[in-house]
C-alpha cells in the first residue's frame, strides 16, 4: 500500500477507534466510580466508543486538529512527506469523514483541515498521530514559576499546584475525565510542545524519572479528589492520568506547560 493510502487509513482508525489503554482506563473508572450519574455517563462513553468502532464513524464530531509526529529516515524529504500527509488529510476530510476544522483567522473562511507536522530524523519511518479537540485545547495553559497567586515556587510542589489549578479552572468544560500532559521547560514553545507530546505516552507506562513518576500518581489522585466528574456533573473520575516531561531551562525561567486532553484521546502509531 502506498504511504498516502496508509495515512488515510490511519486517519480512519484514529478518528473512529479509541486506543486500547484509554478504553481500559475508562472501563476501570466505570467499575470503581460510585456516583450513579457519573457511572452512567462513563457507561455511555464506552457504548459510544464501541458503536463508533462498529459503524466506523468518528467517536466525536470534533475530529480536532490533526497532529503528526514523524520520525523519518536519513535522506527522506520532509517536503515530500508533508505533501503526502496533506493530500491524505484532504482525502480523509471527505471520506472518513473528518469535520473541516481549519478556519482562517482574518477572513473567517473554513478551508478544510490543516495538519500540524513535527519532524525528527530516526532509525525507521514512524508516524504518531493525534486528533486534538478544540474544547480541551482551550483549557490548556502555560504557567510561569514562581506564581504568587498559587504560592507556587520553582520546584515540583509548585508544578503540582499549577496542574491542580488548571484542572480546577477547566471544571467540566472540556469533557472530563481528562488526560493531562505536563512539561517542565525553559521557554514557551518547549512547554507547549513537550506537554502535548506527553499525551502520546501509554496511560500505564512508567516515567523513567522516579520523582516525576511519583508526582504523576499523586496529582492524578488529587485531581480525582476535586469531584468534578465525567462531564463536570460530579463524581470521583476527573482524570485518567497525568504524564510529566522533564526539561532543561534557562536560569531565569521555569515554565510549566499543561496540555489537557478530553477523555477521547485519539492517538495511534503507524
Amino acid at each position, binding site marked *: 500500500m502506498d504511504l498516502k493510502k496508509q495515512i488515510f487509513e490511519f486517519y480512519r482508525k484514529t478518528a473512529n477507534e479509541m486506543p486500547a489503554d484509554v478504553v481500559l482506563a475508562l472501563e476501570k473508572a466505570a467499575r470503581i466510580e460510585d456516583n450513579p450519574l457519573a457511572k452512567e455517563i462513563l457507561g455511555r462513553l464506552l457504548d459510544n466508543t464501541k458503536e463508533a468502532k462498529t459503524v466506523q464513524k*468518528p467517536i466525536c*464530531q470534533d475530529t480536532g486538529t490533526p497532529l503528526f509526529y514523524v520520525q523519518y529516515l536519513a535522506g527522506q524529504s520532509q517536503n515530500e512527506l508533508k505533501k503526502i500527509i496533506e493530500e491524505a488529510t484532504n482525502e480523509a476530510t471527505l471520506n472518513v469523514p473528518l*469535520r*473541516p476544522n481549519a478556519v482562517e483567522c482574518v477572513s473567517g473562511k473554513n478551508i478544510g483541515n490543516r495538519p500540524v507536522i513535527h519532524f525528527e530524523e530516526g532509525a525507521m519511518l514512524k508516524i504518531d498521530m493525534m486528533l486534538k479537540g478544540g474544547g480541551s485545547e482551550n483549557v490548556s495553559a502555560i504557567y510561569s514559576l514562581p506564581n504568587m497567586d498559587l504560592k507556587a515556587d520553582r520546584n515540583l510542589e509548585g508544578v503540582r499546584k499549577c496542574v491542580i489549578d488548571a484542572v480546577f479552572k477547566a471544571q467540566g*468544560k*472540556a469533557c472530563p475525565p481528562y488526560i493531562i500532559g505536563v512539561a517542565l521547560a525553559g521557554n514557551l514553545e518547549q512547554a507547549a510542545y513537550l506537554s502535548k507530546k506527553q499525551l502520546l505516552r501509554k496511560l500505564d507506562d512508567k516515567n523513567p524519572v522516579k520523582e516525576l513518576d511519583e508526582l504523576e500518581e499523586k496529582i492524578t489522585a488529587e485531581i480525582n479528589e476535586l469531584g*468534578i466528574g465525567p*462531564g463536570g456533573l460530579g463524581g470521583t473520575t476527573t482524570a485518567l492520568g497525568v504524564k510529566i516531561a522533564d526539561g532543561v531551562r534557562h536560569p531565569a525561567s521555569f515554565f510549566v506547560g499543561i496540555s489537557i486532553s*478530553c477523555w477521547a484521546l485519539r492517538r495511534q502509531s503507524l
Partner: protein
Amino acid sequence: MISLTTPLKEEDILKLNAGDEVLLNGTIFTARDKAHLFLLGEDFPLVKNGVIYHAGPIIKDNQVISAGPTTSARLNPYTPKLIEKYGIKAIIGKGGMNEGVVNALKGRAVYFSAIGGAGVLYAEAMKFKNVYKPEFGMPEAIWEFEVKDFPVIVAIDSKGKSLYEDTLEKSKEVYKKLIGA
C-alpha cells in the same frame, strides 16, 4: 424517564428539576459562535420558542455522522440576549454556563447537558432536516434536525439550580485544601 416533544410547553419546562433525565423529541437547531452573532443581528423566526443545540456536527450527503455537543461556556456572552429575543425554551450543550445564563433561564427555560464525546450515539438519534447559513462552514452553520429519544440531563433548571454550580462549590473546598490557599 421523562419524554418531551417540541414545541416545548412552558408548564413542562417549569416542572423539570436539575438532575432529571429527559428524552427529547422533535426539532432542534444547532448554533455556535457565528450563528449566535447572526441570530442576534438578524431576524430568524424559525428558532422562536425553540431548542438550541450547541454543536458543530459532521454531516455527509445529508446524513448525520457524528454530532455531540460543543463547550457552552463560549456562548455565555450571547445567550441571555438570545433567550430574550427568541423565547428559547431549552439549550442543549456541555460543560455548563455562567450565572448570567442561569439567571436568564429563570422562570422560562432550562439547560440540558449532553455527553461530550458521545458523537455517534447522538447522531443515531438525529435526522437532517435543513441547513441555514452553510457559508459559515460545517461546524458553524445552523443545522435543523429532527430528534428521536435524544437523551439529555437537566443540568440547570428554571428555578436557578445548577449541577455545575454544586460541583464547582464542592471542588472549590478541595482545591483550597490542595493548593494551601
